């Protein structure tokens, strides 16, 4: 990265062309002067191998003053537009974005060619990774050559260009190869992951009953579980079961107990633990029921006086809020209590729309949030919710 000025540029020019310093300086000076002159006279200068300079008028446009919001007119002006010549364009070698683009287009062109590339979206990510991993290598190879060719360019362009092109081709081939490898590796990875997941899903029940089978023949794992389940049920039936109605928790408890043990011979501690489970569950149930009854009784005493006024003033905008503190005070666990309060607040209130009302405003006022419009919309069937006529009576749940 070097900054040239007319002086240093003329020096470089003299060195390259073999002209004397003064001639080179004169030439480059007149060159740029003539460009300026041409722009002033014609408004257009075309130079072969460089491009076209053109004076373009920028139309006046309206804008807004940021400070006071007033509209202001930005005056039009003239500017010099430069369009580089076709010959000045050179491809940039080892370009990541280009490789990705090429891959994308290749995928687009043959979307249903083979299932492995089309079905998997994940390889695309792997490809990008592959490219990014590969990029530093390519750059490392390219960089010294670039410096070298930079000097080369001054003396002879075609040689270094060919050199660069050859390297570019090599890099291209290498990129394609690594892409392929990454693709294959990823496919393999996906397949193995699936296999592992399958095996993992199958192993736990097998470890409990027949650990040798899983180790011996992993291929037959898929068929095994079906033959395994009846045996397990037999074991369950042997156990002293108090409540045979729900088998799911039993299986769960069995599973939980099985996991840490891992060994077959130690069956007695497992059974003891199962006993504990079956003792604990009814006790817990009884306790919960007792608490529920107590809470219910306690609430009935308190709720009966408050429920009546609620029923009378149904137009009160906050009946639910008056009911809520009670439930908080007593116990959130008591389902029966909340059910009774719900039935108490159930009768729908109505509201007659006044001019200037909007459903969102009503929702904000009644429920405390604009999002609650949905509740109103659900409770009413408006032909057009955006335009409800004044005087319409709406339900407020």
């Amino acid at each position, binding site marked *: *990265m*070097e*900054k*040239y*000025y*007319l002086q240093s*540029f003329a020096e*470089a*020019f003299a060195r*390259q*062309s073999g*002209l004397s310093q003064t001639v080179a300086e*004169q*030439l*480059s000076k*007149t*060159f*740029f*002067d*003539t*460009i*300026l*002159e*041409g722009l*002033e*006279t*014609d408004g257009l*200068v*075309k*130079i*072969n*191998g*460089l*491009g076209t*300079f053109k*004076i373009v008028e920028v139309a006046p446009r309206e804008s807004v003053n940021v400070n006071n919001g007033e509209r202001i007119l930005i005056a039009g*002006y*003239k*500017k*010099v537009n*430069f369009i*580089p010549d076709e010959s*000045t*364009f*050179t*491809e*940039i070698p080892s*370009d990541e*974005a*280009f490789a990705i*683009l*090429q891959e*994308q*287009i290749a995928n*687009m*062109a043959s979307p249903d060619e083979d299932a492995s590339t089309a079905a998997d979206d994940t390889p695309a990510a792997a490809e990008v990774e592959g490219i990014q991993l590969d990029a530093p290598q390519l750059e490392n190879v390219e960089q010294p050559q670039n410096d070298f060719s*930079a000097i080369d*360019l*001054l003396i002879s*362009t075609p040689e270094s260009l060919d050199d660069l092109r050859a390297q570019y081709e090599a890099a291209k081939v290498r990129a394609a190869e690594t892409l392929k490898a990454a693709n294959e590796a990823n496919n393999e990875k996906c397949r193995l992951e699936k296999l592992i997941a399958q095996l993992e899903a199958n192993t736990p029940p097998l470890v409990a009953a027949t650990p040798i089978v899983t180790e011996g023949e992993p291929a037959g794992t898929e068929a095994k579980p079906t033959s395994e389940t009846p045996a397990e049920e037999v074991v369950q039936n042997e156990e002293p079961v108090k409540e045979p109605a729900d088998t799911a928790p039993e299986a769960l408890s069995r599973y939980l107990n099985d996991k840490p043990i891992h060994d077959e011979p130690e069956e007695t501690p497992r059974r003891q633990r199962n006993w504990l489970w079956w003792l604990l569950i009814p006790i817990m149930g009884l306790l919960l029921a007792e608490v529920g009854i107590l809470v219910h009784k306690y609430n009935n005493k308190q709720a009966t006086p408050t429920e009546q006024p609620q029923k009378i003033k149904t137009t009160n905008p906050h009946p639910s809020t008056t009911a809520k503190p009670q439930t908080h005070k007593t116990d959130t666990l008591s389902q029966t209590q909340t059910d009774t309060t719900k039935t108490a607040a159930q009768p729908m209130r109505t509201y007659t729309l006044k001019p200037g009302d909007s459903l969102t405003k009503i929702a904000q006022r009644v429920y405390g949030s604009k999002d609650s419009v949905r509740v109103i919309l659900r409770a009413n069937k408006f032909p057009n919710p955006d335009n409800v006529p004044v005087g319409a009576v709406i339900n407020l749940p």
Partner: protein
Amino acid sequence: MNNRTFIDRMAEVLGADADEMQTQVSALVNLLVNQTKMGNTLTVKNLGVFEPKTKAARRMYNPTTKTFNAVPAKQTIGFKMSGTLKDKLNS
């Protein structure tokens, strides 16, 4: 002003042969383009700055074959006019 008139004008100013001028100018242009594409800039007083410019890789659609092609990123030369030139043009 096209290339011919440009060369003629330069030859007239320097008092040289037009054909000779053409070769010298193309050498100068070559140097300018190559130097700029290497990442160097050239600042010319009262005119502006020549600087490198990259065009990103893009996707191209060929309407006749109805296929997409990838166009590689390209390096070229850019020019930005100076403030003094702008003032001159708009005075």
